[in-house]
């Protein structure tokens, strides 16, 4: 009984890591790649660690697995946030089919402060749009 549960959980974990790695290849722009990779790998590694914790009836293995999952959940979103922010600062273009970009022109160009209201930001509106026009620009 417990073997079947373990098989199901570890299969889901491995599949999500596999889809994340296919996603790195197939996604059209940087933000979508980041978006696909970080979450799926967190879920996959977490599920595999849970499997290891159930498999070995040992307190030290369980506590280590819980600690690793805890630190993974704390650190992975922050890493994704910082990478995404740095990418937006340096002007990495969005995909050409991007629907809306409400962050556009909200940064103060000199101080890098971010405004929360639209009318405050209008005075430092930048002219160039960050969304790519053609397929080649995102490559």
């Amino acid at each position, binding site marked *: 009984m417990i073997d079947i549960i373990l098989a199901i959980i570890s299969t889901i974990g491995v599949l999500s890591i596999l889809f994340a790695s296919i996603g790195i290849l197939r996604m059209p722009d940087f933000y979508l790649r980041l978006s696909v990779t970080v*979450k*799926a790998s967190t879920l996959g590694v977490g599920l595999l660690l849970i499997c290891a914790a159930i498999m070995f009836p040992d307190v030290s293995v369980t506590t280590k697995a819980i600690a690793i999952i805890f630190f993974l959940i704390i650190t992975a979103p922050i890493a994704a946030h910082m990478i*995404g922010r740095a990418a937006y600062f340096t002007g990495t273009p969005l995909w050409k089919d991007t629907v809306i970009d409400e962050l556009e022109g909200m940064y103060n160009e000199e101080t890098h402060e971010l405004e929360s209201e639209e009318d405050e930001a209008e005075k430092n509106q930048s002219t160039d749009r960050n969304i790519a026009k053609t397929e080649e620009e995102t490559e």
Partner: protein
Amino acid sequence: MIKYFLMNLLLSAIWVALTGSMYYTNFLFGFMLGFFVLWIMNRNELDQRYFYRVPKIISFIFYFLYQVIKANIQVAFDVVTPKYFFKPGIVRYPLNASTDFEINLLSTMLSLTPGTLIIDISDDKKTIYIHVMYLTDPETFVRQTKTGLERRLLAILR
């Protein structure tokens, strides 16, 4: 609030010591038992918040896991099929959460849900900017997140 939690931990530690098996399912069972005992003992007390909050936290964990798995299946389907179904976009999201801890937890939850990625938070801590993969309409996305994830999270924290 914190007093009840410490008492609950103490009761479960006593349960673990008496039964003698240091396995985590035994600890969880002792925690449930201690929660039940505390609930019966404090039926006439005025401060009942702890006993509402623990079931809310457990239901929130299950709700969050359900959301993560559902969104993961959607993203995985989109990755393996040849056509792209997504409509990405960056949305401005006005925050109800006010303290740093609430904002931190909310953005962690949002970042862990597939399809949404926090790009940045404004300097006055009133809005966050989210990169969404499946964006039909910015207003519907903001409304769904407000009534779903943020309301449940703030109900636990406040």
